[in-house]
């Protein structure tokens, strides 16, 4: 009872102190950099030749109807397959007694921190017209391009995030419930079907949502391996960048938001009242596996096939960086790496710079906002919370074009600093920082904050003496997360890149488009390396310091990474 009262009333009598103005500033940021661009793109999409009209949308449903159909088709199958693979990997890690769990987790983490369309690149290298496997080894003449390729690569790319979300819930399940079911005479299959999976439903539903939305908004994969098969996201990209028809591009990417929003609403309905991550962590008993043997066999096969493919993928990319001409001449060369040194190093350094700035900003703003929103200290917290959440469901191209429309009036000199790229990344990742902040905060007794006031400290002291030190884990999570995101993202920022602000992923994107496999492989490898170094050193720093909240934040950390690509 005391807690509830506290959260409602604590700031009374001292509302106009320093934290209050900080809150105003943060809220203004959320409104300007999330709400305003969103409104700008919606407005743009309903103007045709300068007057109000739904013409763009009508066109989409008539002439471009097949695009919508294609997007939904790909999204549907990608979700099904990615969920299946993800579920298998998750069960492998949590519910079997197989060996190699650490390796599985490590490979999963690796795939989580690599740039998008790495899969497409590897696909082209392995199964393309000059693919190592299809052409060189099997001597096949097949057409790798089309819906099947997109679905395969997106499924594999998105299976990881699904796996981590499901692992998080499976770990939180009280294992004695499963034991009780077996004890009461249920078969192993019934226990899995009626107990384990229903309990894991929040994670499975969330995973499905995220996979579906990300599949819809992914334009890299269809672009590279779709061939003639077009989807909405590629169309949005080409309309905006190719023909610079921004109203039409706005309408297309707004259309992308609609299914995403519907899925989001369903998800809210299903999840109402179900916490995403159970607060109680139950000690996992390492008992014999409680799955039927045919299920665990399936899990074993799916998981290892997936892991092997992932390993093959990275080996391919890394070796692609070191051979002369992939598919034709496999002799060793350092030529591509030298190209990086000469011409592309600038964009790599720029990427690192943007990523560091974004990460710092998102980390600090995340914990500050988490405090205001989590403790409901300040006016309109619900509205701000909702708006800050929006980028989570908004597809990358939508948010990118939105920024283009809202902020392109800025002078060249300002745009040249990359400020739009940084803010775009910060605000897309902000919600995850806020969420992890709130989840850490939920474990911090609000009486600690009262104690500061009681002892004579002001609001600012509460922030400085209690919130910042205790939310350090959340800051680190947010930092690493945003750093990784900024280093690897392309979907949103490709619309904002100017010749002066070209980043590494854009360089890689161009290289793939030009069919320069050597340079693309080098860029991909270097990005992976940088992100890996940052992730590993931070998690080392993290785990070394035994903090009460490490375990909890790790859990929320993993699924949060790149959740909204």
């Amino acid at each position: 009872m005391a807690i509830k009262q506290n959260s409602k009333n604590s700031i009374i009598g001292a509302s106009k102190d320093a934290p209050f103005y900080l809150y105003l500033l943060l809220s203004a940021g959320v409104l300007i950099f999330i709400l305003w661009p969103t409104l700008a793109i919606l407005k743009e999409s309903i103007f045709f030749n300068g007057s109000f009209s739904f013409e763009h949308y009508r066109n989409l449903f008539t002439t471009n109807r097949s695009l919508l159909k294609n997007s939904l088709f790909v999204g549907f199958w990608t979700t099904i397959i990615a969920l299946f693979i993800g579920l298998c990997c998750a069960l492998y890690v949590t519910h079997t007694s197989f060996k190699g769990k650490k390796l599985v987790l490590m490979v999963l983490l690796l795939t989580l921190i690599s740039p998008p369309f790495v899969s497409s690149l590897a696909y082209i290298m392995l199964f393309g017209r000059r693919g190592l496997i299809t052409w060189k080894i099997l001597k096949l003449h097949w057409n790798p391009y089309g819906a099947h390729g997109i679905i395969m690569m997106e499924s594999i790319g998105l299976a990881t995030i699904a796996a981590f979300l499901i692992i998080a819930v499976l770990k939180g399940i009280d294992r004695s419930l499963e034991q009780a079911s077996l004890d009461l005479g249920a078969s192993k299959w019934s226990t899995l079907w009626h107990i384990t999976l229903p309990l894991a439903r929040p994670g499975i539903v969330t995973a499905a949502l995220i996979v579906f939305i990300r599949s819809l908004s992914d334009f890299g994969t269809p672009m590279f391996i779709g061939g003639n098969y077009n989807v909405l996201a590629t169309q949005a990209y080409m309309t905006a960048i190719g023909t610079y028809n921004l109203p039409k591009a706005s309408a297309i990417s707004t259309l992308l938001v609609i299914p995403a929003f519907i899925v989001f609403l369903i998800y809210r309905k299903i999840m109402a009242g179900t916490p995403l991550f159970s607060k109680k962590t139950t000690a996992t008993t390492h008992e014999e596996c409680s799955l039927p043997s045919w299920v665990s066999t399936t899990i074993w096969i799916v998981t290892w096939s997936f892991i092997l493919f992932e390993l093959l993928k990275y080996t391919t990319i890394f070796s692609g960086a070191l051979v002369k001409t992939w598919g034709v001449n496999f002799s060793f060369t350092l030529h591509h790496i030298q190209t990086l040194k000469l011409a592309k190093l600038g964009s790599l350094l720029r990427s690192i710079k943007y990523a560091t700035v974004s990460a710092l900003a998102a980390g600090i703003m995340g914990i500050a906002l988490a405090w205001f929103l989590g403790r409901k200290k300040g006016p309109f917290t619900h509205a701000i919370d909702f708006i800050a959440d929006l980028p989570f469901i908004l597809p990358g191209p939508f948010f990118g074009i939105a920024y283009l429309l809202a902020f392109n009036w800025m002078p060249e000199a300002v745009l040249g600093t990359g400020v739009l790229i940084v803010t775009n990344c910060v605000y897309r990742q902000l919600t995850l920082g806020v969420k992890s902040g709130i989840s850490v905060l939920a474990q911090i007794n609000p009486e600690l904050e009262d104690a500061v006031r009681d002892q004579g400290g002001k609001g600012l002291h509460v922030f400085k003496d209690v919130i910042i030190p205790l939310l350090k884990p959340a800051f680190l999570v947010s930092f690493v997360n945003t750093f990784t995101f900024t280093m690897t993202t392309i979907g949103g920022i490709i619309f904002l890149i100017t010749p002066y602000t070209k980043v590494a992923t854009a360089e890689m994107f161009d290289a793939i488009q030009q069919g320069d496999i050597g340079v693309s492989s080098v860029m991909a490898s270097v990005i992976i390396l940088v992100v890996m170094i940052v992730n590993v050193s931070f998690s080392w720093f993290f785990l070394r310091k035994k903090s009460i909240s490490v375990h909890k934040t790790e859990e929320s950390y993993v699924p949060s990474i790149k959740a909204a690509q």
Partner: protein
Amino acid sequence: MYLQLKQLNKKFGNVRAVIDFSLNVQEGELVSLLGPSGCGKTTTLRMVGGFLQPNRGEIILEGENITSLPPEKRPTATVFQSYALFPHMDVLENVTYGLKFKKIARKKTLQMGLEMLEKVGLPNAAAKTIDQLSGGEQQRVALARSLITQPKVLLLDEPLSNLDAKLRIRMRREIRQIQKDFGITALYVTHDQEEALALSDRVVVMEKGSITQVDTPRKIYTSAQNSFVADFIGRSNIFTLKGNKKIAVHPEDISLSEEHGQYEGIIVGHQFKGAMTTYFIAVEKQVIEADILSRIDQNWEEGRKVKVTFNKESIMPLF
């Protein structure tokens, strides 16, 4: 009067959590707020601490109206139910935290902190982290942190509820001792009637946001004014007399006899508790409990007819 609470009212939405709460507390007095959960006792305490703003009413301390002062400006200090010790600071840092805001030299504050730790019986704990302390030790650190700022009123919010039964009894003696040593005025919230009776100068019994009775522990126990207090404080038999008048009688104020007594009763059950045996007796279609000193030679079996007498001085007429 040292501390005056005048007509305090607090609403949460439509729920009236505290209704017209008025109380005068003398300097050096320890007053308990006692009641079941949800009775408004913690809300009252938090209003005194400045964490909640009353909808109506005033809080006067030494003649000064402090009703609208924020917690950091109030000369009150709270011992929180969870202790609210800062987990990222060591014991000494916790204890001296409040002195940071008093413009006292760092060296001096450390000295004061060590002295305070000594006074609460933790002379060697200064450099320990909070999670190295036992529950009782954490309790003392919380107390030390509150006392070091020399507050005019000490507020304790169920400070013993996280301790086990034995430690609770020891700590309530210690808290009382420290409170007396410092001569500090204290408000003490608890739902444990035995605790309230054992350490208070006066007890305020609350029910549904209102005060039902304020008295010394002895008076509260021996002359409860209504059935809520009688029922909440200790065990009482609420007995309806002819003409629907109600009285309350404690089980130890009932005697049983084979020959003489006011009422006829039949033993319907008993529980042996060591020194005492509790008999359940049906009297005029009501079942009452009587605590009788256990004696080897005397044991009434169930079904047996007995004569029951209520000790005249101990009968509490209820209103």
